[in-house]
């Protein structure tokens, strides 16, 4: 009993000591980072940023930068009401209204209550621009009317219905499209939601009747009841605009003509990606440098010989950057009206940014290589976070990105625990695994070698291979990356026709999974299992890897919680995991994936016992078998 107590005390002492070491290294990292940039340089940088901001702000205030300024010339009398339109439109330049100069100095002439157009393509474009300008001008005038109901007698609340599985528009929200007359009677907007054939994503959703009550002001600004993932014209400040342009984006006027109604575009996600990710890109640069600096000229050797663990060193060096990113994220969230939910949604992205950069810093041999790695990380993670968010009208797809959680938060529609787990789970687990891999090679024997990035990656895998069981563990730990790759594949292929996207996806999924299951076996045969390169060892390790992957794959059951398997593409991506639309089929498929994974990984492992070329060659039949299985499962499921 006392021995146990002593062990507990010892563990507590060790934990306290570890935390103290982390805090010391973090303080030191902060003081060093501050010391690296001298104050004058920092001040100049800040000044340059402010200057750039001021120039940008001034340009915006002046009406923005118009690359097509005065490209079309319109002949119009200064007394004409159209003169004002031409003058206020950057692309148009006012000229005297001389019809005989058509085609020779002017493209369009407004005279005698007629519009004359030269016979050229440019003139047609000029006319189009002129018409748009006139329409905008008229709408602006209408918006200035004090009696809004007189200017806009019909008010329509737009609701973009959530697209249900396989692209069918949900019909259960028929009442959402109710137009609200404002005293001028009723108007049937004849919505189409609910009668979709499954191929069209009808944006109107205004299938209900209109009523003659309510006020225009209410409906024009009300966001209540609007689906958060799909957005509407009246969404919050960063909601998806119903009317084209940034005016809607930032809560500008929502009055206009039907011509102004545009399909939803994820401006919100775009802006959020910009706001949250730009600071991350700034922070990962010094973080990657500080990690690589420890490896240049063996600088970090002395920390390794100090009484602190590699994990404490890494934690201490990472903590200031993580804190900075969370702080900046909190500031951005505060600025855009987000709650702690937004911070909690973006923080795991920041963690993965840092984790991937850490691994990059541990693998890169030079700052040039590190730059390549960090840019790749930035592009990949930005794509992963942004691309799914494009599909704002397909919630399960959009939820792949944590940015969608931010949109939900901003629109006040709430985020469920399942949604949070689905969106951020891969980021959390992925970060942990990457840090674990990086810490595994944070030791003298690996830190200071000049091996190539792929070999360093194999070293990192080998650092975590401690016996056969660890092969299964590593396979299971590969799941978040497989998950991320497959979700990204789903998001990228979503735009293609189902006949094309599903076969492509099935092959992509097979390839991703086969590599994830076997690459550490290949590494092991060049590391701890180098003296066991027989076919028996290959089969044993292949089977263990398949088992580990099978068990880890069950974790992807979280996708059930957000309904991704309800999508055809989602079913295709995850059906091999035994996740099916019905429990019965799921049970039936429970053990089949185990046999599949064990078999295909054994095939690849047999190749891994030899050289790289043989391993890559063995991957081909493994992928083929896996893809065939996927096709069979998908065909069975319909």
């Amino acid at each position, binding site marked *: 009993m006392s021995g146990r107590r002593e062990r507990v005390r010892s563990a507590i002492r060790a934990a306290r000591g570890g935390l*103290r*070491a982390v805090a*010391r*290294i973090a303080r*030191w990292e902060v*003081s*060093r980072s501050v*010391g*690296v940039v001298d104050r004058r340089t920092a001040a100049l940088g800040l000044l340059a940023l402010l200057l750039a901001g001021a120039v940008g702000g001034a340009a915006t205030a002046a009406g923005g930068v118009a690359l097509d300024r005065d490209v079309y010339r319109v002949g119009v009398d200064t007394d004409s009401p159209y003169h004002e339109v031409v003058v206020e439109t950057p692309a148009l330049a006012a000229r005297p209204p001389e019809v005989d100069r058509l085609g020779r100095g002017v493209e369009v002439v407004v005279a005698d209550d007629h519009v004359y157009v030269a016979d050229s393509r440019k003139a047609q474009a000029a006319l189009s621009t002129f018409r748009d300008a006139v329409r905008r001008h008229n709408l602006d005038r209408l918006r200035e009317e004090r009696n809004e109901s007189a200017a806009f007698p019909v008010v329509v609340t737009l609701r973009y219905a959530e697209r249900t599985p396989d692209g069918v528009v949900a019909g259960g929200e028929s009442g959402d499209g109710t137009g609200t007359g404002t005293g001028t009677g009723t108007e049937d907007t004849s919505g189409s939601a609910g009668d979709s054939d499954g191929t069209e994503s009808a944006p109107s959703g205004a299938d209900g009747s209109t009523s003659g009550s309510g006020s225009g002001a209410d409906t024009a600004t009300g966001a209540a009841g609007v689906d958060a993932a799909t957005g509407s014209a009246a969404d919050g400040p960063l909601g998806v605009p119903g009317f084209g342009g940034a005016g809607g984006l930032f809560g500008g006027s929502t009055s206009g003509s039907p011509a102004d109604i545009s399909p939803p575009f994820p401006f919100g996600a775009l802006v959020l990606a910009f706001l949250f990710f730009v600071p991350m890109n700034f922070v990962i640069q010094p973080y990657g440098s500080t990690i690589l600096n420890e490896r240049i*000229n*063996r*600088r*970090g*050797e*002395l*920390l*390794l*010989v*100090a*009484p*602190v*663990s590699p994990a404490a060193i890494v934690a201490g060096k990472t903590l200031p950057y993580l804190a900075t990113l969370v702080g900046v994220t909190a500031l951005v969230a505060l600025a855009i009206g987000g709650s702690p939910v937004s911070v909690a949604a973006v923080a795991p992205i920041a963690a993965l940014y840092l984790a991937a950069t850490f691994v990059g810093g541990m693998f890169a041999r030079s700052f040039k290589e590190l730059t390549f790695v960090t840019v790749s990380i930035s592009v990949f993670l930005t794509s992963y976070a942004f691309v799914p968010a494009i599909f704002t009208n397909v919630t399960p797809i959009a939820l792949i990105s944590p940015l969608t959680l931010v949109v939900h938060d901003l629109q006040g529609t709430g985020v469920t625990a399942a949604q949070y787990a689905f969106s951020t789970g891969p980021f959390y687990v992925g970060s942990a695994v990457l840090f674990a891999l990086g810490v595994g090679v944070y*030791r*003298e*024997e690996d830190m200071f070698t000049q091996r190539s990035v792929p070999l360093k990656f194999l070293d990192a895998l080998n650092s975590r291979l401690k016996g056969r069981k660890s092969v299964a563990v590593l396979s299971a730990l590969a799941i978040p990356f497989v998950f991320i790759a497959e979700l990204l594949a789903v998001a990228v292929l979503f735009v293609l026709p189902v006949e094309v996207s599903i076969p492509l996806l099935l092959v992509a999924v097979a390839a991703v999974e086969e590599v994830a299951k076997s690459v550490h076996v290949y590494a092991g045969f060049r590391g701890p299992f*180098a003296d066991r390169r027989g076919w028996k060892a290959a089969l044993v390790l292949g089977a263990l890897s398949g088992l580990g992957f099978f068990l880890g794959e069950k974790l992807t059951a979280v996708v059930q919680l957000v309904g991704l398997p309800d999508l055809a593409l989602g079913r295709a991506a995850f059906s091999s995991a035994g996740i099916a639309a019905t429990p019965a089929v799921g049970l039936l498929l429970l053990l089949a994936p185990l046999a599949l994974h064990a078999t295909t990984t054994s095939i690849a492992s047999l190749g891994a016992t030899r050289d790289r070329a043989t391993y890559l060659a063995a991957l081909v039949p493994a992928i083929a078998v896996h893809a065939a299985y996927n096709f069979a499962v998908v065909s069975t499921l319909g």
Partner: protein
Amino acid sequence: MIEVEGLRKTYGDFPAVVGSTFDVDRGEIFGIVGPNGAGKTTTLKMIAGLVDPSAGSATVAGFDASDPEMRRSLGFLPEESPLYEDMTARSYLDFFADLYDVPGEVATERIERTLDRLELDHRDRRLGDVSKGMKRKVAIARSLVNDPDVLIYDEPASGLDPLTTNYVLEFVRELRDAGKTVLFSAHNLYHVESVCDRVAIMNRGDVVARGTVPEIRETYGTTDYRVFTSVPVEGAESAGDRHVVTVEEMAAVEAVRQRAADAGGEVVDIRTREPSLEDIFLDLAADAEPDPRGGA
């Protein structure tokens, strides 16, 4: 204080160290010499817990080399002086003292004392701006911030000018006199011979000889006898008005004496020349024979 038993390290198929065995007593300076690639640095790093041995064991101050607690008793100086060049000497040493849980006042006093002893000026100048000798002194000071019982110095005088080298070697002697145990490696055999109490010679990852310098000389070296004769004899070289024959055994001396007598002359002088450590090292490195006393 340091016990090394069958220490072995292989990188893939390459054996960097094939089985070092030796021990270092408290208050002793123990030197490891050997050519480049002999396995000296790898051996030191395994003892310091930086590199995991493939086989064998090393204990330092009673702790296994893999035990993090061992590091509190150890001061390690790598061959290079990889300092954080944006820090000052003082802040650099403060940081490491903090890492070793040295109380602030104790650390300040100890750091100042060490820097004074090492005559290290420019304590508040960035380390990137000081000379190589100064950097080496800072690195040595860093190895002492935790007042360790054991010091492992890898080529402590590497790349230093003769003046600073002598300074460093003298400082190592002082450390020994202060009760520290010092294990260090060197290329320069003179440094080892002049400083070390005992020596191990490594070649191709193996300890091929060990002991005090006289012991090694006696065991592995051969004493030359220079026999001076009044008349020319077979094999003799002219040495002024005399002639000299160099032989390696007393029996050969007697043979020279007989030849001189046969030629009507005599042996007028016999001198011995002890082999230097370098002579022995070169012989052993050429032969690469394992230690006959089981050192390998």
